[in-house]
């Protein structure tokens, strides 16, 4: 079949259009466009059918499907949108986490930087500050290692602007918290509270690691495969147990270190994860509605038992 590839302003993206076999897939079409315009690798392309009258949202040509499912006849128009430069999720995550991992120790090991803010040099290092360094470094090392050795990502990519936005968020909050925990005039909480906080943090991180293993096994190694109901361990009670354990790790860290900076990070991160969790819970309930042979999604908490 013959396809005209047009931009939204009606300009031809591929001169003379694209000629394809009748049983070609959407991916074949994307590769063909990539062949003639080397800038537009497949992940950058968004292909849709032209709007029909009365239609508000265009039909997106999804990867993995045959063109025949969308197009009748031998000649049709396809609209092309450039999504801009894309990066894989492991790249995005790596840059997000490397900032906090490297920035935090600077404040611990180089107390002289506080003198630039007109503050005195640190006289003593509190036990809580040293443990906080270990907990922080362990946490972000864990996240980076999980990114490369545990998580299985779909083939989805993320626009490069997300890298800048997310790095700004993670890096500045990392420096903000590190500044106050390692401050020369830092006031530690009682010893029992410190120990309880870090103990909670360690337990929560181990549980969090286990939830990531469970989530990994839901996805086939090639990144394909359908949507599944998470099962086992805390997932039997909570839809997003991975977020719950992540939040508990930060609660533990904050109980032990007690800074406004840390608690504000906890609040914002908790809010973001709650929104993601609500979305995922809704999606799972919709996908597994128990009709026409589909499984029924069991009754579960979304993220914070016994409240939500």
């Amino acid at each position, binding site marked *: 079949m013959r396809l005209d590839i047009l931009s939204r302003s009606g300009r031809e993206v591929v001169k003379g259009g694209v000629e394809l076999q009748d049983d070609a897939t959407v991916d074949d079409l994307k590769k063909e466009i990539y062949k003639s315009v080397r800038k537009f690798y497949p992940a950058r392309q968004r292909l849709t059918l032209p709007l029909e009258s009365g239609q508000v949202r265009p039909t997106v040509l999804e990867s993995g499907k045959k063109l025949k499912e969308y197009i009748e006849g031998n000649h049709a128009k396809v609209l092309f949108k450039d999504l801009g430069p894309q990066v894989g999720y492991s790249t995005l995550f790596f840059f997000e986490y490397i900032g906090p991992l490297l920035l935090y120790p600077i404040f611990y090991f180089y107390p002289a930087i506080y003198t630039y*803010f007109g503050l005195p040099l640190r006289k003593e290092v509190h036990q809580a500050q040293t443990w906080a360094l270990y907990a922080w470094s362990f946490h972000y090392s864990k996240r980076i290692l999980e990114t490369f050795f545990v998580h299985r990502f779909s083939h989805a990519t993320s626009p490069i602007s997300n890298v800048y936005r997310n790095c700004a968020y993670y890096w500045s909050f990392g420096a903000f918290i590190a500044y106050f925990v390692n401050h020369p005039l830092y*006031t530690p909480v009682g010893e029992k509270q410190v120990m309880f906080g870090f103990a909670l943090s360690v337990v929560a991180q181990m549980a969090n690691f286990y939830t990531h293993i469970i989530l990994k096994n839901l996805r086939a190694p090639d990144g394909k495969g359908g949507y599944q109901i998470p099962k086992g361990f805390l997932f039997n009670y909570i839809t997003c147990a991975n977020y719950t354990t992540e939040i508990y790790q930060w609660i533990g860290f904050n109980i032990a270190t007690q800074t*406004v900076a840390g608690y504000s990070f906890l609040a914002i991160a908790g809010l973001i994860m709650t929104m993601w969790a609500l979305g995922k819970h809704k999606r799972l309930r919709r996908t597994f509605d128990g009709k026409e042979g589909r499984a029924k999604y069991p009754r579960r908490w979304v993220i914070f038992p016994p409240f939500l």
Partner: protein
Amino acid sequence: MAGTAGTGGGGGSTLRWLYLSAYNVVLFFGWLQILCLAIEALRKDGPASVYAAVEKPLQIWQTAACFEIFNSIVGIVRSPVSATLPQISSRLYVTWGILYSFPETREHFLVTSLILSWGVTEVIRYLFFALKEAFGVTPPMLLWIRYSTFFILYPTGIFSEAGLIYVALPFMKVSDLYCLRMPNVMNYAFDFYCAAILILGLYVPGGPYMYTYMIGQRKKALGKQKTQ
């Protein structure tokens, strides 16, 4: 009268019409008062006397702009929060955090350019929206002025704002106003001087962002008129 609101383009309720008309009319007269007081003081006693002449009305009418943030969050007006929030919060910061808090800045000549830039912009803007919301009319001349004066008044306004923050810096440094020092049990410190430097830094991307936003608004508003 509710019929006029329909032609106003919003298609909203009578209550919305009443609220937006009243808000824009009141703010128009508020800013007209500020502008007149400023010009009168400028002619009589020179730039150093401008702030004293406009202080109270400036504080009242600039603070009233908080309604605008509320309006865009709730969705009563179409302008996005990402545009109203930085604009109004920077205005409030200069009004209360600089001019009110550090009297040493008040006689600087940048106060004159600040009040004139804000004043002229707001008088035109509120008149435009008052006519649009209350009577559903947008005189072409006023539309053009509304979307053209920013070419000059934005740079002068932003420059005056940033300039006054800069002027206030040495006074912040020696003052403990709004500062919280460690040690304290929540391990938190706040330094108004450092915050001001951070805010000055935000003007670097913020200024061009707002300027290009307004150019986009201008294209939308004036382009539409041509096709009609």
